[in-house]
């Protein structure tokens, strides 16, 4: 189907079904129950899942295939956001021009940065991209205030007077009248599920992005990108020029980041410089590695994993912990709560760091490798059969 083989088609369908039914799947606990704090089925978080999924899918095309580790991809996300908000200011609140322009602007910006940064490889490439992203951040914060509105952040003012905004149009981002922030809430017994317009727009675009990424992985172009990672020397002596390939991968992944940025702005018409900061660039690196770099589904899993735990852990506070451990005697409860409270709320980064270390040490292939190991345990296949075919699953079967 759609030019994919059976396995890839299955993967795409599974992801599509998960995305479609996410409002149900992410809200397994009744609204009033104590476990409701672990629900993730609210619009804002679901939008983040798919938007950062797009960001990570694009990043994986560069990092997973060519091995070039960019530490500045948040710059393209930020540029995409600014482009989208400018479209709202100039043309009106319909998100279509904003999303299209965010992809184009991020692509042009990536071409410029990639052209210079790709003169070097390895650590020097990473540092160059990091430098460019921090420059972009600093400029957005100060020098470029007329364009970016500095530290206040770019937003639409009532004095803007967009070109195509009529009195009847909604005064918030919309898709031909369909307001992004509106949701339909379905109540079933004690459960409540919300279906958000913005989420479904993002989810559809994520599926398109995912589909294109599968096609790239399976194309001769994708094969060449893997060749770049494997042996550039052999590549040069095989009549292939590595630089245009890496540059193309860089621009494509920059456009993915721009799309993610445009969608962030479409969900909430704001764009701030902090979106370009290096922590944001580092986050997408973590997502990709945590999920499984070089695999198709890994980055999406990684993005979902990080965004979910970020939200859940940030919400837990000291009194929640006391509630959980109240059955323990006080001399044990207090030190335990004291210890754990460093890992929750604002200290969530500590949890993320610990999880990341555990994954990198015990599951170098990321969550995808974890899934494969569990799958192997269940199906009872011994490792021996895997070795006979001479195909270590992690590298030669990126789709698994």
């Amino acid at each position, binding site marked *: 189907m759609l030019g994919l083989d059976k396995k890839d088609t299955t993967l795409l369908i599974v992801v599509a079904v998960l995305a479609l039914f996410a409002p149900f799947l992410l809200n397994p606990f009744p609204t009033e129950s104590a476990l409701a704090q672990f629900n993730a089925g609210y619009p804002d978080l679901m939008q983040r899942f798919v938007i950062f999924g797009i960001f990570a899918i694009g990043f994986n095309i560069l990092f997973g295939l060519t091995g070039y580790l960019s530490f500045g991809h948040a710059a393209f996300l930020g540029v995409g956001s600014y482009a989208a908000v400018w479209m709202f200011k100039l043309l009106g609140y319909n998100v279509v021009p904003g999303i299209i322009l965010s992809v184009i602007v991020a692509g042009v910006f990536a071409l410029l940065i990639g052209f210079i940064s790709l003169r070097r490889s390895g650590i020097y490439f990473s540092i160059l991209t990091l430098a460019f992203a921090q420059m972009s951040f600093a400029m957005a914060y100060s020098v470029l205030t007329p364009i970016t509105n500095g530290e206040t952040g770019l937003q639409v003012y009532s004095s803007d007077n967009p070109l195509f905004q009529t009195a009847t149009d909604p005064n918030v981002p919309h898709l031909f009248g369909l307001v992004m922030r509106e949701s339909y809430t379905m109540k079933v017994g004690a459960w409540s599920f919300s279906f958000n317009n913005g989420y479904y727009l993002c989810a559809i675009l994520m599926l398109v992005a995912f589909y294109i990424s599968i096609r790239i992985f399976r194309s001769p172009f994708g094969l060449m990108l893997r060749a770049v990672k494997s042996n550039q020397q052999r590549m040069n002596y095989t009549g292939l020029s590595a630089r245009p*390939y890496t540059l193309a991968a860089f621009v*494509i992944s920059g456009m993915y980041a721009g799309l993610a940025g445009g969608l962030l702005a479409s969900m909430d018409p704001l764009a701030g410089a902090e979106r370009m900061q290096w922590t944001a660039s580092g986050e997408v690196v973590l997502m990709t590695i945590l999920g499984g770099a070089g695999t198709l589904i890994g980055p999406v899993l990684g993005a979902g994993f990080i965004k979910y735990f970020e939200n859940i852990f940030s919400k837990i506070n000291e009194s929640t912990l006391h509630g959980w451990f109240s059955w323990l005697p006080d001399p044990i409860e207090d030190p335990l709560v004291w210890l754990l409270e460093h890992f929750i709320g604002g200290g969530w980064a500590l949890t993320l760091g610990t999880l990341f270390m555990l994954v990198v040490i015990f599951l170098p292939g990321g969550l995808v490798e974890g899934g494969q190991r569990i799958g192997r345990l269940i199906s009872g296949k011994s490792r021996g059969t895997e070795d006979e075919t*001479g195909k270590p699953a992690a590298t030669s079967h990126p789709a698994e």
Partner: protein
Amino acid sequence: MGILEVKNVNKRFGGLQALGNVNLSVAENTVHAIIGPNGAGKSTLLNVLVGKLIPDTGSVMFDGKSVLGRAPYEINQMGISRVFQTPEIFGDLTVMENMMIPCFAKRDGAFELNPLASVGKQTDIVERAEQMLIDMKMIDKRHMHAASMSRGDKRRLEIGMCLSQQPRLLLLDEPTAGMARADTNNTIDLLKQIKAERDITIAIIEHDMHVVFSLAERITVLAQGTPLVEDTPDKIKGHPKVREAYLGESA
């Protein structure tokens, strides 16, 4: 006029004259060996031929066109393929993928943006790569991870990858270095077979005299960056200058 003409090439690294007035002519459809003791400049000469080094003076013409100042990938596209001393293959990829990459390079050139095409549907490339694997007697290993193969198989694959581009000149840099005797003999047989079946010029840089005298039709002896003699293997064997260069004056 040979297919490869090296004229008056000089290359100096600081105080070291690595190549001094090298003249070399490789005739089409021959096997030409370049031998010489350690430090004779063999590798420097090879790096000049493939575009990795640019000589200080002189000219290198391949098929009437200068190769100087061109990037390695451009020189490869002109029809020169290189086999490395340690096999350079795409270790993370399967044997079949390894073989398809040079086929794509031959068909599509140095860069082709086709992110939405499907590798499996490029039937011409798949067929060509499979045929080459059959020729190399490696078709049963097609799904193997290239890095997990033995050294001899890696060498075989690398030679196959070079041949799949139908090069006019195949450059071999000590192709049997570090190999066991059996693997060395297999490689010699493979190269003999390649020569018998194809119109191809082979230039080989080698240390192992057994390999050189089994394969070469012409031999150039390089010593201290300068060609001493160029002749047929029979004449080279007994040449006093060659013995001197290899064994020292007293011999």
